Structures are given as structure tokens and as C-alpha cells.
């Protein structure tokens, strides 16, 4: 079984991710609309931005998909003229990379809530590292920083874990995932022989 990404996997991943890119773009205004409230309510919805990676991975289940998905989603968001500008591309790359590393640690064999939540949390850590340099979050008051991180972690588990799993379950029920999974793994191989 070849685990390399075929054009089909790449295109499906990118199309899913561009869809998420549109969602990310809509999410931006919502995010900075709740942000001035000050006590970091915005961080609860931050997890949405890690979702493309886990949803795409759960659908296609191949190495490299999570990274590609997050990069594609962020470039989609970027090319639509995101308010966050260039920042989204770099955050996308780092978040995708961190999610990918965690899925790799599970050897791409686990597709359950725990694995994807952990991947989300890994992305979340990546984004916090960037925030530390870019947003000086280390210079927030301690209680405020803890609130900031806790809200972001909670949001991450809700979006990248629970919501991603339930979306993919619903997609499995429509039968569309079989199209991508089986054709790239079993059917094509049997044709090749």
C-alpha cells in the first residue's frame, strides 16, 4: 500500500482546506469582534483555525495530509485578503507542522478523539510559541495569561477534536469518504497489479 500522496489526495485535501479557508476568513471578523471584551473570550473560538488539519486527516488518513491541509487553508484565507495578512500563512505552516508531528508520533494509525485532540493541542502549542514572540503574551499579567492559554486549549479540544470527529462521522454516513479512502488505497493498488 503506497502511503505517498497522489494527485487525488492532494486535490481533495486542498479543496476541503480551501473550504475551511473560507470559513477561517469568516471566522476572522467574529474573532476580533469578541476580542475587545478583554478577558480572552476570543480564545475560546481560536481552535477553529486548527480544524482543517484534523478533518482532512480523518478523511484521507495519510501522512502529510494534516500539514498540507493547514497550509492550504491558510493560503486560501490569505489569498482572500485576510485581516491578519501574512501572519496567517506562517501560523498555518507551524500549526500544520505541529499537528503532523503528533499524528506521526501515533504512526498515523489512530483516528480517534484522543489522537486528533492531541494533534489539535500540538497545533495550539505551536500557535502559542508564535504568539509568545509575535504578541508578547509573556508580558501579560500572569492570571490573564493563564486564562488566555486555558481558553485556547478548551476551544481547541472542542473544535479540532469533538467537532472534527462529529463532522467526519456525518461525512462517513454519506459514503463520500469511501470514495477517497478506498480508491486511493485498495482499488488503485489492485488495478496496478
Amino acid at each position, binding site marked *: 500500500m503506497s502511503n505517498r500522496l497522489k494527485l487525488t489526495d492532494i*486535490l481533495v485535501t486542498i479543496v476541503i482546506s480551501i473550504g475551511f479557508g473560507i470559513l477561517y476568513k469568516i471566522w476572522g471578523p467574529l474573532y476580533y469582534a469578541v476580542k475587545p471584551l478583554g478577558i480572552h473570550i476570543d480564545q475560546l473560538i481560536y481552535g477553529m483555525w486548527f480544524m482543517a488539519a484534523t478533518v482532512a486527516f480523518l*478523511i484521507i488518513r495519510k501522512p502529510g495530509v494534516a500539514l498540507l491541509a493547514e497550509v492550504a487553508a491558510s493560503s486560501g484565507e490569505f489569498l482572500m485578503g485576510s485581516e491578519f*495578512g501574512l501572519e496567517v500563512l506562517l501560523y498555518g505552516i507551524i500549526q500544520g507542522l505541529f499537528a503532523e508531528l503528533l499524528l506521526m508520533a501515533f504512526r498515523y494509525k489512530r483516528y480517534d478523539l484522543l489522537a486528533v485532540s492531541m494533534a489539535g493541542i500540538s497545533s495550539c502549542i505551536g500557535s502559542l510559541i508564535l504568539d509568545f514572540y509575535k*504578541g508578547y503574551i509573556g508580558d501579560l499579567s500572569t492570571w490573564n495569561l493563564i486564562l488566555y492559554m486555558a481558553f485556547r486549549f478548551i476551544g481547541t479540544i472542542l473544535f479540532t477534536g469533538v467537532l472534527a470527529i462529529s463532522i467526519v462521522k456525518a461525512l462517513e454516513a454519506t459514503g463520500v469518504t469511501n*470514495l477517497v479512502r478506498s480508491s486511493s488505497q485498495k482499488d488503485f493498488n489492485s488495478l496496478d497489479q
Partner: protein
Amino acid sequence: MNISFEESWLHKVNPALKLITLTFLFVFVVMIHHLNDMITFTFTVSILFFFCTGHSYKRILLFLIPFLLVFFSTAVSMILFGKGETTLFKLGIVNVTEESLFRGLHLGFRALVFAMMGMTFVLTTKPVLLFYSLMQQLKLQPKYAYSFMAAIRLMPIMFEELQTILDAQKVRGVHSQKGIRSLLKDIKSLPIPLLSQSIRRAFRIAVAMEAKRFNSTNERTYYYHLGFSIFDLLFIGYFILMISLGYLFATEFPLFPVTDVRY
């Protein structure tokens, strides 16, 4: 959507080079810790954003509105809750200090610069040419580049489909119930049909593309050829000149009496 604009010199800069330059500048901005330097750099970028994109001023100003919101929302949480010693204002948990005020402003300018740099890039770069340039100059594998281009072409269809689904749901009275459970159902009722249709369509297109050997790794020919020109030098030269001038100006005539905004 038909957006008319004039081609400016920024359109003629090589897209891959433009992207790499802006990425370097991103890292550069993250390493600016002095508010005065940040302000002069904001000025450097805004000249390009306001005068060099070839789009009408009305449109540019329209784009600026959300950027100002981002400026405000980024600045405010650091201003209200940042660390600092010289207290200016205190009310309950809010503790505005001189240090946090300047740091908040600094972060606001930083967000504004990122937004303007990104928008300048997007307004002056055609996505198709960007991916051709990435293939030719940065050796991105064609199967990735063409997948990206195909996916971008699918975006208008996705929007159309979204509208169709919304209309269909309205006609069938899907959103008539109230309560948390039906709200959750509503949230899921949109992405599932949208995603499943997109996956099906992407799969069909991918099969067609594979049949036409788009995934071939052999030497291939290109419809568009992108190279380098004098405008690339101009682009890089502009930043080098303006950053040096800005640095001199900020040291000679500091606007704010702060040096490092970090605590």
C-alpha cells in the same frame, strides 16, 4: 465579481520573490522591539499599500476599515492587562501602565503592518501567476501547484452551492425550530452537504487530471513563463532604503520616549 484596477509596478515583481521578501520582512518585524522603529516601518509599508497597488483609493480605504479594527482589538488586551510599573489608570482587574500602553500600541502597529503587507501582496498578485512562479522559481511540484489552482477555481462554485443549500433549507423550513439541540443541528446541516459535494467534485477533477498526466514528474512545459526583471530590484531596494531611512529618522527624532517595549 469584476474588480477593475490598473497594473502597477508591484504587479510586475516576480510573485515568488515578492512572497519570500515579505516573509523575510515578517520575521524582521517580529524582531522590531522599539515603538519608534515600528512606526517608521508602518509608514514604509503604508506607502506601498496606499499608492502602489493600482486600486482606487476608495477601495483601499474600504479595506482599511477591518485593519483598524484589528489594530484596536490587538492593542486593547495588552494595554488593559499587560505588565508594567508606572500605573496610569486602575479599575478593578484593569491596570493600564505606561509600559503596557506602549506595548499595546506596538502590537497594534505590528498587526496593522502584517495586514497591509498581506493585502498589498494579494492586491498585486494573480494567484495563477503565483503558483506558476512557485513551480518555476522554487521548484514546487506541479501536482501541488495545479491542485491549488484547481481548488481556487472551485471557490465560486462552492459559494454558489452554499447559496443553493441555504435556499433549499429555507424552502423546506429547516431552521424553524428553536433550542440548543436544533441549533447544533443547524451548525452541522451546512458543512456536511457542502463538504461532501466538494469532495465528490474534487475527486472527479483529480481523476481527470491524473488521466491528463498532471501528476507527471518529468520535465514539463509551461503556458506562462516568469522570470526576474528590474522591478524585483526596485522592490527589494525600496525596502532596504526605506528601512535604513526609517531607522535613522527614529533614532534622530523619536516620537515616543520609549526604547524597548518588552517587559
